[in-house]
């Protein structure tokens, strides 16, 4: 690249991104003088565009997200495409994200795969191996033999084959259940007979046991209830309902640089707070885009930073971000005022009146915008 020296000169005056932008857009043939002129104009323009100190950016962001909130739909829609999974969108999803809810209503993952698999190799088998499979999913029949007080279950051999396991594994899983004895039926290899070995087991206990066996974990990853291989662009990915990011990233055939889920806490847990911050931005943006609304990303970034600045994901609720406020009165003016006032009294908290509401309460100028600068003038004369 030519004229590197000129760009260097402006490094501390402009953002790297703007400089990159200029580099990309200038024509090949350009004189030094012209470039210099361009750069000077860019610097001037940048100065004109900068936020002014004191600007109440938080409130502007809150307005920018809150105002279009009234225009969002409440409905849960199908995901784009013909027949895929349901995803919460619209206002409920925005609320869910901003609440910082620990369990979300429709957890989902998009699993990208490493090379041989991303082209579609074994895609179905891989997908199924991720799906959490319980005993009831591979059964074709389950009966209680009232006379012997045993449970007879017949597995669906096709399904078992699909999953890539065999009868021996099933037997192994079944025999792990404590206080039971399992044997394979002599007439039909697919039938397993389970007998309770506990003392004086009644029919009632067998019924309970049946429920227990139904929910025995066979294989897959816990939490993933539904898998769907789809082709995105030129590669195959697996979309899932339910998520377990940590476990999925450990799988060797998964491309762990691109695989994502929509559960903020799982992301924070597996990839750290920075990733969670980006996830909040992405998730919010997805919803807003889908609703056809237009919000600048700066506002969403600020909200996201607000939720993540204290090292953990916190919701915009009285238990989250708002409880962290330093001012007693600001907290009290939101929700549960009595609680905060009493706590403050015991600790002897001091409210330094440095944020907005306290000053509104006391009829004083607020320390944002034009209320921020302090001027001290010595009055001379009489």
């Amino acid at each position, binding site marked *: 690249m030519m004229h590197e020296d000129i760009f260097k000169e402006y490094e501390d005056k402009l*953002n790297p991104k*703007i400089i990159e932008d200029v580099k990309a857009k*200038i024509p090949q043939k*350009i004189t030094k003088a012209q470039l210099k002129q*361009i750069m000077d*104009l860019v610097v001037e*323009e940048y100065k004109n*565009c900068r*936020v*002014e*100190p004191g*600007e109440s*950016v*938080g409130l*502007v962001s*809150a*307005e920018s997200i*809150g*105002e279009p909130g009234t225009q*969002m*739909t*409440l*409905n*849960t*829609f199908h995901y784009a495409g013909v*027949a*895929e*999974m349901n995803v919460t969108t619209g206002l409920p999803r925005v609320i869910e994200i*901003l609440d910082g809810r620990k369990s979300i209503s429709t957890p989902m993952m998009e699993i990208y795969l490493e090379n041989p698999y991303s082209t579609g190799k074994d895609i179905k088998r891989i997908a199924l191996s991720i799906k959490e499979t319980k005993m009831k999913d591979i059964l074709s029949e389950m009966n209680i033999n009232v006379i012997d007080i045993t449970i007879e279950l017949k597995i669906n051999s096709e399904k078992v084959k699909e999953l890539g396991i065999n009868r021996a594994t099933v037997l192994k899983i079944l025999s792990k259940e404590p206080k039971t004895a399992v044997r394979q039926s002599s007439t039909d290899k697919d039938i397993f007979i389970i007998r309770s070995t506990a003392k004086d087991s009644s029919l009632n206990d067998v019924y309970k046991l049946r429920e227990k066996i139904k929910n025995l974990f066979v294989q897959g990853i816990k939490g993933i209830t539904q898998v*769907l291989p789809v082709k995105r662009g030129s590669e195959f990915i697996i979309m899932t309902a339910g998520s377990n990011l940590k476990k999925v990233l450990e799988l060797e055939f998964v491309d762990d640089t691109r695989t994502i889920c929509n559960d903020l806490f799982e992301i924070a847990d597996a990839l750290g707070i920075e990733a969670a911050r980006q996830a909040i931005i992405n998730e919010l943006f997805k919803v807003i885009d889908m609703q056809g609304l237009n*919000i*600048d990303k*700066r506002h969403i970034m*600020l*909200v996201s*930073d*607000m939720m993540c600045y*204290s090292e953990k994901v916190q919701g915009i*609720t009285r238990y989250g*971000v*708002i409880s962290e406020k*330093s001012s*007693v009165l*600001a907290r*009290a*003016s*939101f929700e549960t*005022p*009595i609680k905060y*006032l*009493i706590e403050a009294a015991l*600790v*002897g908290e*001091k*409210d330094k*009146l440095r944020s*907005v509401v306290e000053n*509104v309460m006391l*009829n004083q100028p607020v320390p944002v*915008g034009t209320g921020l600068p302090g001027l001290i003038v010595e009055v001379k004369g009489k």
Partner: protein
Amino acid sequence: MVDKERFTYKKVSQVDFGLLSPKMIKKMAVAKVVTPELYDKEGYPVDGGLMDIRLGVIDPGLKCKTCGSKLKECIGHFGYIELARPVLHVKFIGLILNLLRCTCKECGRVLIPQNKTDKFSKELDDIEKNQSFDARRKRVRAIILNLKTINKCPHCKARQQKITLDKPYTIFEAEKRLSPIEIRSRLEKIPDEDCKVFGINASVARPEWIILTVMGIPPVTMRPSITLESGERSEDDLTHKLGDIVRINQRLFENINAGAPEIIIEDLWDLLQYHVTTFFDNNIAQLPPARHRSGQPLKTITERIKSKEGRIRHNLAGKRTNFSARTVISPDPMIDLNEVGMPKIVAMKLTVPERATEWNLEYLKKFVERGPKKYPGANYVVRPDGKKKKITDDTHEQIIEEVQPGYLVERHIMDGDVVIFNRQPSLHRMSMMAHKVRVLPDKTFRMNPAVAHPYNADFDGDEMNIHVPQTEEARAEAEILMMIETQLISPRYGLSVIGCIQDAITGNYLLTKDMQMSREKAVQILASIGMTDFSRLPSKKILDGKEIFSALIPEDFNFTGRSKSCKRKAKPCLECDHFVKGKCDIDSRVIIRNGKIEVGIMDVANLGQGAGFLLRNLHKRYGKEDTIRILGDIFRLGIRVLLLRGFTTNLSDMDLPEAASSNVEKTLLDAETEIEGLIDSYRKKELEAFPGKTLIETLELKILEALNRARNNAGNIVLEHASRKTGTFIMADSGARGNPINMAQMAACVGQQALRGKRINLGFKNRTLSCFKRNDLSPEAHGFIRNGFKSGLKPSEFFFAAMTGRDSLMDTALRTPKSGYLYRRLANSMQDLRVEYDHTVREAAGKIIQFKYGEDGIDVSKSEGGSINIKRIIEQVIGETD
């Protein structure tokens, strides 16, 4: 010249919180309350009663015995009562329990060894310093939780017994009830340094102060009585409650002194505890609330503070103002965008204070002379010592004489005064903007319809508010920061929130599309919108519409953009190969060179609100004042053109030629046969299910898809065949109102009514309405409306349409409070974020949220959608040197 302005020279810099000690209560009290009686026979407050005039006055004419001032001047003074027996404070019951459980009953020390106590209190201080008060609170909770299991005092080795709470306020120690006296004596034993472990700062809150031995009586001014029309006095809820407390307290005293049996004393003591408890909080789950004689619960202290109607949110965080007006709004396109039409009646009630100086004295005297009844006059004058004088017929002559430099004259509002215009709900900052006043006849506020959008107003009876700034500072801020023109570009997405609407768009669209008119006519139109210089009109006999429009834009303006009909919206024009190669449809691009439209139509894409790049470029290039002026001119031009041309929409706009309607019919029939086939194959179980879906779900999806396709096809047919000359089409095409789908719905087919993304499936057993057969899967039985609005709907179709209509009504009704709460939380949590002088974003305590706002420090409303237009700068430089 007398000038004794009272400046605000004191500012509250800190508010401290703490508990009142009994000593403190007595010290700050001015009277001891001993009798529950309020007034004597003459209706005069009793000494030592709850309405004692030492506690402040609420009757006009009386003087406060403590400070000697009269009603409204005296802020009130606290009193106290000596409780015969101590009682617990409900709000601290949890703390009392924790303290009792975690300290030794004998020596009063915390149940942890000495070295650990120090460690904990140091840890807490560290947490507070490094994290927050909240983190400290959480740590305290954790420490206390760990203490509960210890049952032997590490200091004096005394055995501890189990302490339980019988809600709401009875405490037992191993089945034996602990009296407040006992509890108090135990709390007294806790040393100051041990309090720290509980997060209590003993210098402001000694634990034993929680147990009340004396009680502060709030001043009368805090609980004023109201005199009813009948002359009867009605006391405040708090006074009632205090009366109860004093009465029981006196009885308890008497009984104790008379040596009454223990049971009676215990009962009275409990009753006192109940009254004191409900005085603080009348909404405790296990207690019956104290009630009025009418049965309605009393509003005591907690209820006064709490919730939306409570003191904090209603009175402290929400203020009321004078100098405001509210009335219905109506549109007036002939006033400027930044003006507001104010009725004369309003202008004569609202005033602006203007300071008299030697230079404007005569001018102001004229206002005084005209008085309050003649416009423009003045209502009040304020003397430099702050005394306000009303101008009346009797006083005005004397006041004219009196006015001299230094006086304030509160004159009527006149044209050009700056006021703040607002419509609720004030969801964003554009809901409150400053306008310049135009005093007009009639009784509504008038506004330019173009600015209705930022306020989200319409004129179906909406009311709006006006506030008049009363100081020079406020006026300056309103003018510099809040005027319409400064709010043009929304900080939400960086585009203009104000633009042409409805008929203005239609007018400009028609004008720039293919209109031609004589020069005389053109001059007439331009003159009617306030233009005086016609030199920019080419001197031809017949003028093109584009030339007329061009007369409004600055001569050196260059712009390339697209109009609504451009289909390649993803890319900016300059990067679009279609555009570069000049392959664009002639109507789909807009080129303005040297202030002249060369090609293109002016429609929503350029003039509309929230869209127009044209407006943003104008704003960038010529600044806010010119933009707003040009926009106003364009708006009026559109309306004028439309007025001259005439514009209407007919039912016959929806007529389709024979061929088209049969075509529509065929499309729908085709779709129906296709669906029949689908249903058939479903019944025969030949249909293949989508992965993850059941068979019926697959069928539903396929049907839905087929029906939507059919509707879209029908729409396209309508669009193809509809006359381009009709009003309806012009409106849809220019983007002024309506869209092709609306047209198709009117002319051909309304389409499938969807409920939650599915066909309508509810109603009766296995069918939607009783007029259908059971298990009918056909389109018409599940909400497909085959007819268009013009031909009319069948009863069943009408019913389906009503279903979706009701559903969307419900949706809005449920959404509003939800999104409102979300907004409140967002605003509350982020209201004190601001950009500091070092360009970091910080919260109130100074913690950094972002190192640079939005990672690049660019203001959305000042830049071009959040980025700098480098392309333009490069072109500017290279273009210059070329």
